[in-house]
Each structure stands twice: as structure tokens, then as C-alpha cells.
């Protein structure tokens, strides 16, 4: 069965909710990490929630509401989220209170909001949606798992349409830890030109993007979501290439049919090498990247999916994502290839409608 992306809501460090990015306005950051541009939350969520909820919950709920409005669907058949780290801000706040107050007189609010499924649950409460509700939390597989579950459910007729999202927030505390661990550079200065300085560590980012996946095409359809695959700790680039070829042939496609590969290059010299090797056979495809716009985080593939779906719908590739020259005319099939710290590799295949 074909699965269509019929609505999107994307909150990111770029102007992704109002078309600003596609008209060429690029936000550049110079502090620690790339931070999401807050929409006017009161347009999407109740004032109490806007006041009390952690940032990731607000970003997620607003992105979900934007997505549903975009699709014209009021009540999705299921809500499935993926988040690598979940509600970091609330978790940190409860830990801080617990330690500072020597475990005494703690308010439960931040604990209540610290569970990874909080955003999916809060969206369900906002919509009064009693349907299937699920949250995947596996590093660079979090969002991909949410998509795979969605595809299976629509394929099997368990749901006609599903609200699926990927979301992660960055906090100063988590940034400090991740930087000490060598995941990120100490500043995101220079993020916009990922290639200029090859060193270890990437640029920290965050985002929340939701998609309305549906069994049928509508006037609001962006593209078809053909397949999602995950590959855990491949032993070498050949294993990844093999997986790509198998995926393409399962959809009667060859490497030449892929008009654009959007890859997860993140500027970290320890992990970027594999992209060149895996993508070498894609001689005729356009190559593009995206993490200079949103930064690196567990569910960045959700931003990549937003970008790809917009490209297919608008039939136009913004020049600032291209790595090589745009010398072909066709724009039918897009492959997203990303990996998280070399362990979690994922592929998303999209087709124009």
C-alpha cells in the first residue's frame, strides 16, 4: 500500500513554519547550539500548557497542531513519536530540585513531565484522542522507529492515518555534557559551512517535526513515503551500500533513479567519511546535506524528511542544501541517508506524487 505525507508541522532553528527558509532566509547561530525558533505558542496550545510545559512538549504539541491543520485531519488514527532524549529540561529540573533540597518537599510537576512519552500523551489530551499512542526512544533510530510502526499499521489497516513525529530539545546542561563527551563542538560558530573546518565534534541542534501519514492521496499531499530502513552497527560501508541497493530494488529502482540524496553529514571528521564511500555510486544524483541548518541531534532525520517533502512538493531544491551541481532536471525520488555516531544508520525513500 502507498503511504502519503499529507501534512507537516516543523519547528526548527530555521524559518520552517512560514516558508522563510525556502525563500532563502537562513538563520545563523553563533552561541552554543542551534536553537528552535519559537512560534506564537498561544495560537496552538492552551495558555496553561504554554506556561507549565517544558520546551520540548510545547514544540512538539505546536508542531503536531500545525501538521494536523495542514492536513485537514482533526483526529489521527494513532499518535507515534520518536525522541532520543525525551524531556531533558524537566528531567534536569527534577534532578536539580532533588539534589538541592536533599530529597525533601519536592513538587511533582517536573517529574510528571519528565517521562519520554509526555509529548505524545499531551497531544492526545489536546485532541481527546483515545487511539494508539506510542513513543520510541532509541538514539538515532527513534524517529525512524516511529515511521516504521506507522507504515506497518497503515499497511495492515490498523489505522488509516497516523500523526508521527520526531523531537528532541537541547539544554545548556545537556550541551555541556555532550560537548565534554566530544559529540559537539563548544560553539556552533561556523555551522552554516559544515565543510570549511574538518575537526571532531558536530554542531548541536534540536527540533520537532510532525507528519500526517495517510493511506490516501489528498490535495494537500506532499509526496509518498516509500520505505524506512534501519541498520545497526554495519561493519563497513559495503553493508550500507548493500542495504541501499536492496531497498531500491524492492521498489523497482536503481541507483540512477535517485535524483537527490540528502545525507546526514555533520562536520565531524570521525564520522563523515562513510557518507562519501556509501554515496560514491550515486554519480548521477544530486547530493545535498541539511545539518548545517538544524544541527545534529537524535531525531534530525525528521528535519530531513520535512526538507525532502518540501522539495518534492515545490519541485525545487534550495541551492543552499546542494553539495554538487544541480545539473539534472528530474526530481522524482529522494533518498535520505543518515547515521548517528556511526551506530544507527537509517534510510528513508520518498517519491513524488
Amino acid at each position, binding site marked *: 500500500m502507498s503511504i502519503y505525507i499529507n501534512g507537516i508541522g516543523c519547528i526548527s532553528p530555521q524559518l520552517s513554519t512560514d516558508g522563510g527558509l525556502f525563500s532563502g532566509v537562513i538563520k545563523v547561530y553563533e552561541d552554543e547550539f542551534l536553537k528552535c525558533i519559537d512560534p506564537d505558542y498561544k495560537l496552538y496550545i492552551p495558555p496553561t500548557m504554554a506556561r507549565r510545559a517544558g520546551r520540548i512538549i510545547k514544540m512538539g504539541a505546536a508542531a503536531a497542531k500545525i501538521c494536523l491543520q495542514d492536513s485537514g485531519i482533526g483526529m489521527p488514527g494513532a499518535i507515534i513519536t520518536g525522541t*532520543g532524549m525525551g524531556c531533558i529540561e524537566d528531567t534536569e529540573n527534577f534532578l536539580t530540585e532533588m539534589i538541592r533540597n536533599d530529597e525533601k518537599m519536592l513538587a*511533582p510537576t517536573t517529574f510528571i513531565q519528565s517521562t519520554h512519552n509526555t509529548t505524545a500523551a499531551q497531544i492526545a489530551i489536546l485532541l481527546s484522542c483515545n487511539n494508539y499512542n*506510542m513513543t520510541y526512544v532509541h538514539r538515532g*533510530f527513534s524517529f525512524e522507529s516511529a515511521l516504521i510502526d506507522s507504515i506497518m499499521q497503515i499497511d495492515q489497516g490498523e489505522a488509516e492515518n497516523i500523526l508521527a513525529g520526531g523531537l528532541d530539545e537541547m539544554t545548556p546542561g545537556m550541551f555541556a555534557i555532550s560537548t565534554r563527551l566530544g559529540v559537539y563542538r563548544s560553539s556552533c560558530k561556523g555551522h552554516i559551512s559544515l565543510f570549511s573546518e574538518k575537526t571532531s565534534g558536530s554542531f548541536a541542534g534540536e527540533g520537532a517535526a510532525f507528519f500526517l501519514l495517510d493511506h490516501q492521496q489528498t490535495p494537500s499531499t506532499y509526496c509518498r513515503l516509500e520505505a524506512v530502513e534501519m541498520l545497526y552497527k554495519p561493519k563497513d560501508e559495503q553493508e550500507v551500500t548493500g542495504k541501499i541497493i536492496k531497498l531500491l530494488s524492492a521498489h523497482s529502482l536503481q541507483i540512477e533513479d535517485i535524483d537527490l540524496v540528502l545525507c546526514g553529514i555533520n562536520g565531524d571528521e570521525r564520522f563523515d567519511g562513510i557518507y562519501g564511500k556509501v554515496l560514491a555510486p550515486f554519480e548521477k544524483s544530486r547530493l545535498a546535506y541539511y545539518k548545517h541548518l538544524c544541527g545534529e541531534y537524535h531525531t534530525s532525520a525528521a528535519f530531513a524528511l520535512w526538507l525532502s517533502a518540501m522539495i518534492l512538493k515545490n519541485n525545487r531544491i534550495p541551492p543552499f542544501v546542494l553539495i554538487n551541481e544541480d545539473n539534472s532536471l528530474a526530481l522524482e525520488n529522494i533518498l535520505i541517508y543518515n547515521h548517528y555516531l556511526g551506530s544507527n544508520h537509517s534510510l528513508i525513500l520518498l517519491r513524488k506524487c
Partner: protein
Amino acid sequence: MPGRVFITGIGIISSIGDNVDETLFSLITGKSGIGKNTLIDTVYKNMIPVAEVHKDDHELAGILGINDIRDFTRTSLLGMIAAKEALSDAGITDINHARTGLISATSVGGMHRSELFYKDFLNDHSKGRLINIIHHECGDSTEKIADLLGVKDFISTVSTACSSSANSIMTGARLIKNGKLDRVIAGGTDSLTLFTINGFNSLMILDKNKCRPFDDTRSGLNLGEGAGFVVLESEESAMKSGKKPYCELKGYGNACDAYHQTASSPEGNGAYLAMKKALDMSLLKETDIDYVNVHGTGTQNNDLSEGNAMLRLFNRKIPPFSSTKAFTGHTLGASGGVEAVISVLAIRESLLFPNLHFTTPIKELEMVPVTSLKKNVSVNHVLSNSFGFGGNNSSLIFSKN
């Protein structure tokens, strides 16, 4: 939906035993694992009982033959022990012989170590031993289990609070039914933490005594720790392996209460919908259910809400039911896996396990659980409930072959 999913292996570790045999012995002899906290350094050490696995991290690692525990959180070690037992119980020796996946679940991942890190980190971001925070992520324990068992084809992690591992079993079954995998090791793991003890304490839902699920005098839950995994196999895979399945996973349902982040709706709407969905999928009638392993945490809110949902589903004719949390404590993200294993044991051994510490039915419900071990009972269909924060409610139905 096509395809059937069978359970061919089980593995468990909790406060009532390090493996299936020890667990069964405790369930039969009525030995609760709830007692004094000896492992978590909290100011409530002498006030709040817990159901801890009676081994420190080194001893747990010893079971696995691991000497250096730095890279293994308690959550990982518990999960590795239970998942390994499940795989071996299913008689699987060559993991790559068929397409095999691992879906694990956890609510707090490596928090047990993160909170140690955070004490030093809080006032100075350059402080804190990184080895204690690097394994914080929920996916960490899953990858440790996958690497131990050699699982490559598909791995993922679920976190929906206390229904996490019921949902991981559901995702595992769906992957088999969709023909993506032949077999899946599914379940979950969680260790006790300062974070959860204080979190549940701040909600004022921790009993200072042993919990009394479905009792009118109930006053909260006891936190526990552990891991429970089952091996799910497609019909074809189970037939090929030759291992006689314990039972079939005949139905599952996931519904959201959509009422409140932590409280259940009084009428238990989400709970009812989850059970109803599972029953509809199984094509069974509610009168076919021989035993319900209830979520039954022992909190005022859960038991009343779950009871109301059961009265509605079963049209007031309630089958035998019990909460086994008075044995194991509430193992949070692991509870769905732990109770799936206990449900399979009920079928395998033709036993109904007691709801310990019960004396008085809840006034509004007048429901009386199984209070003593029932032997030689025909247990053909078991319904297992797991409900979590966020109104994430899930039910599984296990049926004798």
C-alpha cells in the same frame, strides 16, 4: 491481520528471583520481594520499602561473566540477564539463522548512574565522571543486550512509562505479522533509582508498607526493579525450530486515556479501550478469559479506574484476577515484560497466582481477587494489563496453543 505470533522463550529477573525457576518458586510459595532498601542511597531508606534485586551490580555482572562493569548500567545488566535467559529458553543458538529483532523498553534508562554524575555536575559543569552519564540514554541498555546476543537485524526501544514493555511486545508482534522479522526478543528493563523513588514520593503514591493492590485500604505502590523478556516467533519459525511454544500472543491493544498526564480517568476509559481492542483482535469472547493479570499498582486511582474498566468489559462477571505487584513491586518500564512472563507461567503451570496482602474489597467495586495459589486450573486465555503515565494503556492476551 495475517500471521500468528507464538511465545517460545521467557526470561525474568526481579526481587523474587534471578531467573524463571526462582520466580516460579517464589510465586508458588507466596514469597514477596518487597523489603528494606539496601542499594539506593536515599534519605527515605528506612521509610520507603522497595522490591530490589538482591545483588549489587558486580554480582549481576558476575552472572554474565562480565568483570569490568563501567560500561554496564544496572538497567543494562538486568536486561541482559533476562533477555539471555529468554533466548536460551527458546533454544535459539544461532541468532543469525533467521531474521531476529530486539525491542526493549525502559522508563529511566541509565538514570541510576546519571544521578550520581549530576550531584557533582550540578554546581560545576566541568565536574562529574563522564562514565556515569555516557550510558544515560534509553537506547543504551538495548544496544548492550543486542550486542550480547548478537542481534543485528532490527533493534529499537520503547518508553511509554509503565506500559513500556507491553508496548515493546506489541511492536515485536507487529514486526512478525508484517513479515519483517521471523522472531523478536521483546520486553523491558528498569532499575531502581533515586529519581523514581523521589518522583513517586512527590506524587504521594508510595506505600510505607507492603502494597495492597485492589484492597480498600490500599495506600500506594512499592517500586521494584527487574527485567522480563519473551521470545516471539512466527508460526513458521516456531515450527522450524522444533521448540513447542508456550502459548500464542493472540491479541493486543493500545489506547490512550487522554485524560491527565498522571491520573487515570475515574471510569477507566483508556483501560477499557485497551482491553477491548486486545479482545477484539483475539476473536475471543470476554467469557473466554480465564485469568487477568491486572496492572493493580495499589494506588487509589489506578485500582479504582482499572476495576471500573473491568466491570464494564466483563459485564460485571469478573474472571479470576490478581496483581502480582505485591510480589515484584512495580517494576515500571519492565512491568509489562515481567508480567508477560508471569502470565505465560500461569498458562504453562496451570496456576493462578495470589494477590498478596488483600483483605477487604474496594467499596465501589466489590471485586475480590485470587488470594491464594490455585493449582491445576485450566488457564487457556490470560489478559495482562499495563497502564502508564500519559494514559498510555496497553493490554496483551496470551492463549494456550
